[in-house]
């Protein structure tokens, strides 16, 4: 089984430095592209490979690139979204800490494809080791001629900067990220215009996830057919999946796209800990709908998880066990979303704290039967199309699915006027 993205990262997760990266073929894709390929050929290759964005939304990367106007003079930007902050998600950390040059090579190739002049790694504050490794990698890449003026003797030049954030979930939303890079509050922008046309400082900009960009050099080297052959399904490549919660071996693994939930949970995460039963899981981070044991044979690719009523999201699963209160679990999520809402649009600013308060009252024994209807109304009114960005609709996904799959728990809280679970974790 091939693991192109992570095979060279040592077990202790230590970073591959420039010489080690070059020794395993690093920067050969960049050499090849600058020598043999036109920018448009790189774009077309990525489009034909049907690489889908690994940040959560799953948009086709090559298609995104194709929206960048190529005949406009002046600066253009390429940004790696390394602001990994979706609760339950820890996959990009592995790539950032373990193989920083793989990301940089992917970024230079992506920048070449869209003819960007400047690139940024937008890294979250908490990733201190990643910041240290990225800083070193960028400096080494400049020295070796992989960044800067006339890269590898070609006519292509690219400047690269590392930006470390100051902590806000909204920064992961691509237009909010752009505002933050401009030194402003990270509130989302109206679309259109899309960032591909008018992004950072009003210039054409592409924002891609770390895992997505880490693919580019491999696809340039090995081709679209190879990329597709790695997967079990129509969505090509491998995927970094993760599992956290009360399983025997929580962790992250690079596996063929489309493995089943059962395989991930039982073979890789080692099954549930002794004395704990699986009740459900968020398949791809905090803003995805629960799946339950009825869904264990669902193939974890974009289409498979969507058909089961959820989203692949970031591919990192959070497990709900039978000793953890589903109402408390969802309360924790809504607390996060209410806190991280940027406050820009009313349904999200007002609706999320209200949702959190209702769930809190249920946990504390003061919930009323009408509360369930109120929660359902929120799930509908904060859903897609009613808010400025995807934060609130994402926040409603675990809530609406918990109301569906764990309804008896919600009702029991109201009937018994208390949380029936022994732990009262808040």
């Amino acid at each position, binding site marked *: 089984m091939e693991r192109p993205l992570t095979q060279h990262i040592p077990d202790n997760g230590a970073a591959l430095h420039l010489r080690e990266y070059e020794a395993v073929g690093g920067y050969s894709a960049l050499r090849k592209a600058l020598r043999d390929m036109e920018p448009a050929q790189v774009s077309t290759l990525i489009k034909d490979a049907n690489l889908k964005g690994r940040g959560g939304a799953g948009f086709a990367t090559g298609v995104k690139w194709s929206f960048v106007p190529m005949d406009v003079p002046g600066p253009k930007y390429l940004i790696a979204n390394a602001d*990994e*902050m*979706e*609760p*339950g*998600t*820890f996959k*990009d*950390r592995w790539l950032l800490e373990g193989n920083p040059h793989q990301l940089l090579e992917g970024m230079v190739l992506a920048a070449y494809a869209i003819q960007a002049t400047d690139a940024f790694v937008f890294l*979250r*504050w*908490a*990733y*201190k080791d990643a910041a240290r490794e990225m800083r070193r990698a960028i400096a080494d890449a400049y020295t070796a001629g992989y960044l800067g003026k006339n890269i590898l003797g070609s006519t292509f030049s690219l400047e690269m*900067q590392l930006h470390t*954030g*100051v*902590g*806000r*979930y909204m920064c992961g939303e691509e237009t909010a990220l752009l505002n*933050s*890079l*401009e*030194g*402003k*509050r*990270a509130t989302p922008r109206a679309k259109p215009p899309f960032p591909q046309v008018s992004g950072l*400082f009003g210039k054409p900009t592409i924002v891609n996830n770390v895992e997505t960009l880490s693919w580019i050099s491999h696809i340039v080297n090995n081709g679209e057919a190879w990329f597709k052959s790695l997967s079990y399904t129509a969505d090509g490549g491998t995927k970094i999946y*993760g*599992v*956290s*919660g*009360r399983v025997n071996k*929580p*962790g*992250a693994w690079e596996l063929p796209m489309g493995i089943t939930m059962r395989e991930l949970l039982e073979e890789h995460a080692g099954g549930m800990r002794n004395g704990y039963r699986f009740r459900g899981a*968020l398949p791809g981070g*905090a803003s995805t709908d629960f799946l339950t044991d009825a869904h264990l044979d669902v193939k974890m690719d974009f289409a498979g998880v969507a058909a089961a009523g959820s989203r692949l999201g970031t591919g*990192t699963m*959070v*497990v*709900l*066990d039978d000793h*953890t209160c589903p109402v*408390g*679990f969802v309360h*924790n*999520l809504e*607390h*996060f979303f209410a*806190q*991280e809402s*940027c406050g820009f649009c009313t349904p999200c600013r007002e609706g999320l704290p209200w949702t959190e308060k209702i769930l809190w009252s249920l946990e504390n024994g003061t919930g009323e039967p009408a509360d369930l209807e109120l929660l359902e109304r929120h799930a509908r009114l904060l859903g897609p199309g009613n808010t400025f960005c995807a934060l609130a609709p994402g926040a409603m996904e675990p809530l609406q699915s918990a109301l569906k799959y764990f309804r008896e728990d919600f009702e029991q809280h109201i009937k018994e006027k208390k949380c029936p679970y022994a*732990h009262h*974790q*808040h």
Partner: protein
Amino acid sequence: MLSAIEIEKITHELQQVPVKKAACIEALKIVQQERRWISDESVADIAAILEMSTAEVDSVATFYNLIFRQPVGRHVILLCDSISCYVMGYTVLRQRLNEILLIGYGQTTTDERFTLLPNACLGTCDHAPALMIDDDLYRDIKPGDLEQILEKYH
């Protein structure tokens, strides 16, 4: 008043950006690194150097979780309170920290040694529960480990 070193660092940042305002977050980071937090006076000083209004700088300063607009201790404890750490029992750690330090969220010990803050997902969910103290990440923490961890910070 900003120190010479703060002005030098902010001036360096200004050379990297097309408009002065764009250096706002970097300026806040620079001043916080020197003074641990951002006072009203610092907001006004940054506004002056970036040719922004104080309200505009404050709107940015108050937006971000890790820009501190109140004094903090010499060390800041960021306890992850997101979902995987919830499942793995961060609340027990919170309780234990309250008992050891005699402070709750948002408070600073009387000797100014520690400030305790909740923090959104630290991205190390396979090693929950987790916390950070300054730049150091601690993972798979048991309540009994806390005292030993805290001893490293003075």
